[in-house]
């Protein structure tokens, strides 16, 4: 079965500025891919190249097994069978919800529209005008509209950035369910790593116009390919140390580690890997280091404790939502889990 979307060696420049270079990507059918990266990394351009609103300077774009862009070929967007959901939803304000969703269906098949509306949990709202809906509802209409014609792939451009934080989490879940129910292939662009990790089957991290790593979320989180990626995809602690045969020697003691480089390295530990224990009267045990708590950020379901090791470095540790520790308290830090080593910069 051919991939739903395939990019090979795709590049696009605007004058002296290279937006995208040498991008290779594949999205399998039914898969959800997240394009994750900081602003200006080229992810939106890549999306627009797939949609057909930009033409590549180099490389080829295939949608549904058909080459839609490449040397001598540029199929216009209306012929690519690609659905798109925009950041501001771009609902047609002069049409009702029903008419919006029916727009891409030649003959406006009522049954299909009803089906998609039900899929998107929008039953009964067909007669409303877009401005009469809440933000979340508008977003679902945009998705329904894109899904109705049964496209090869649905492209979403920062679809949640217009929603407030509380809404975001719920809407994300709904969207994931809708896409799964529809069996749709989707590519969405985001700069929010939490979003990418929670929604996508595969995450492609883009930096400086090219894909630097593509992997499943867990893999990306626990095995980032570079220090930069590590820092971008979640909180990360970095401490210097020596790596030999899967063991790292550092200020936190002897720690199991993985990674290719040996000798003097920079080791990454996720905050979840640091365990804290209240330190009452001195006494650090072996495999522990003493530290003083600097600050605490409480999130309800978890908390991030920032602490300074006695030996100097500042680290952060993620704990559950329990009592935690206050600034100024003395704690003992131990590592539970593996470190990932990177070459020293």
């Amino acid at each position, binding site marked *: 079965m051919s991939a739903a979307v395939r990019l090979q060696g795709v590049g696009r420049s605007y004058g002296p500025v290279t937006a995208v270079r040498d991008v290779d990507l594949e999205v399998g059918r039914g898969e959800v891919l997240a394009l994750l990266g900081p602003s200006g990394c080229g992810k939106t351009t890549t999306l627009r190249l797939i949609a*057909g609103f930009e033409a590549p300077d180099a490389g080829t774009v295939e949608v549904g097994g058909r080459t839609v862009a490449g040397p001598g070929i540029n199929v*216009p967007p*209306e012929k690519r069978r690609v659905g798109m959901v925009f950041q501001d939803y771009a609902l*047609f*304000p002069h049409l009702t919800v029903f008419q919006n969703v029916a*727009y891409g269906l030649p003959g406006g098949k009522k049954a299909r529209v009803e089906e998609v509306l039900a899929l998107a949990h929008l039953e009964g709202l067909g007669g409303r*005008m877009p401005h009469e809906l809440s933000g979340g509802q508008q977003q679902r209409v945009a998705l329904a509209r894109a899904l109705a014609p049964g496209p090869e792939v649905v492209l979403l451009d920062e679809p949640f950035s217009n929603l407030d934080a509380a809404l975001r989490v719920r809407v994300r879940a709904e969207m994931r369910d809708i896409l799964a129910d529809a069996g749709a292939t989707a590519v969405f662009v985001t700069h929010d790593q939490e979003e990418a990790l929670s929604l996508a089957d595969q995450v492609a991290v883009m930096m400086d116009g090219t894909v630097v790593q593509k992997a499943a979320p867990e893999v990306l989180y626990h095995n980032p390919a570079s220090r930069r990626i590590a820092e971008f995809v979640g909180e990360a602690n970095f401490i210097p140390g020596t790596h030999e045969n899967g063991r790292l020697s550092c200020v936190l003691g002897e720690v199991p580690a993985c990674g290719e480089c040996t000798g003097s390295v920079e080791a990454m530990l996720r905050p979840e890997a640091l365990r804290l224990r209240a330190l009452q009267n001195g006494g650090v045990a072996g495999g522990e280091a003493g530290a003083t708590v600097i600050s605490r950020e409480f999130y309800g379901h978890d908390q991030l404790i920032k602490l300074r090791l006695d030996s100097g470095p500042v680290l952060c540790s993620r704990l559950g939502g329990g009592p935690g520790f206050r600034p100024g308290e003395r704690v003992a830090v131990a590592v539970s889990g593996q470190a990932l080593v990177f070459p020293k910069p």
Partner: protein
Amino acid sequence: MAVPTATRTEDGRGAKPRRRRPPLLLGGLAGLVVAAMALPLVYLVVRAFEGGWEEIAEVVLDGDTLAVLGRSALLASVVTAASVAISVPLAWLTGRTDLPGRRAWAVLAALPLVIPSYVGGFVLVSVLGPRGMLQGWLEPLGVERLPEIYGFPGAALALTLFSYPYVFLTVRGALRGVDPAMEEAARSLGSGAWATFARVTLPQLRPGIVAGALLVALYCLSDFGVVSLLQYESFSNEIYIQYRSAFDRTPAAILALMLVALTIAVLFVEGRTRGRARYHGNAASRPANTVALGRWRLPALLFCGGVVLFALVAPVGVLGFWLARGLAEGEPLRPLWNAAWSSIYASGLAAAVTALAALPVAILSVRFRGRVSGLVEKATYLGYALPGIVLALSLVFFGANYAPWAYQTLGLLVFAYAIHFLPQAVGTTRSALLQVRPSVEEAARGLGRGPARVAATVTAPLAGSGILAGAALVFLTTMKELPATLLLGPTGFETLATRIWGATSEAFFARAAAPALLLIGISAIPLYLLVIRERAK
């Protein structure tokens, strides 16, 4: 100019606009403006009822009167439709395609606005008339007689050519406000370029089109210059005949009130066309893709060229020809500096005063939306649709009898201009205000600034460009105003418009051509700035 009269939800997220009571100061100011609008109406009612109900019935129910009213309505409809038909493609071609020289075309397309109708009508007759220039050129080719220019065809053509820019400018502004994401969404859903334009872009342009169309339609009702030169029996013609022949102001006042009634009908129709849709006037997050014209390039250029040829090149060319001919025959030309300065000065004052007067009305209409503020906004159009002579006489009546200290001063004249052209400023100010997010004003209020201070220091600067655009439009229209200037200006006050009139009334074409060209030249500058300014935004 940004989208005029598009209503927009406060935060673009479906929240209903808050219904608050406007502060007293704002309501008072807007009320003053409306009271000023009402002056001509009071005068008309007073005069109309002088003859009692019988005379009113006699005039209103006369079959001929109604026929003439119908003719005016027909003219206004046709001119409006033609203006829209010209302007929408022009705006699209100059704003969204890769037409060569589109910046220049945009300016040229807007320029016919500055040509006074009494000049344009004259020129049209001399070019396309039965013994005009075109006939002269075509005669050797065997064309015996051109199609009749007088009457409806000529009047419609002349009015269309010189007032379509009103629609062009508003549609152009509206086109900028269309979110390109919507067009891209439509294309991703399978609509080709034409289908996207028809089904998605055009409905978005509707508020802009309607706003411009309203200006054109009401202008047609009030215009006298063109219909008298091209001999079309319209309602304004009828009113003038009454004044010029009968010296009895009562039937004229009755007719003018009928015109007001027609205006109200037009406004009512316009209100209904707004429909249920609320237009999200998002400022475009990125510039829209330009459409490649390909093999349509030549037809597009021919279209633009044709319009500009008839609406701009022909009048300016003919004027230049008259001037050259007059100079060659040794016609003495009086210096124009005084008249030019008076024109600029008076028009500048009018622009400033009108823009200020438009502010309370526009703020009321945008921030405190409701029935009353809607009515207030509509009321501003009543002064616009009245023929200049009616407006002038009403202020003569009030000025001479109730405010003699103001009578025949520049102040009263500027007041007349403001009443006459207020809707132009209100429209653009409204759309500028619509783009200022209320949250910004609220933030300022939260920092302890009172409403008036906020309006002056936060709202006005942010909406500044739109307000300036409205002022510029009023400036341009006032430059060519004639009847009020003749009757209400200080005795001896000369503008370029009165100079043109003085010369044309005695067929001294060269002496008319010079002030006409100067008027066009001077007006072109703010118009040019107005049009190209938009690109910088």
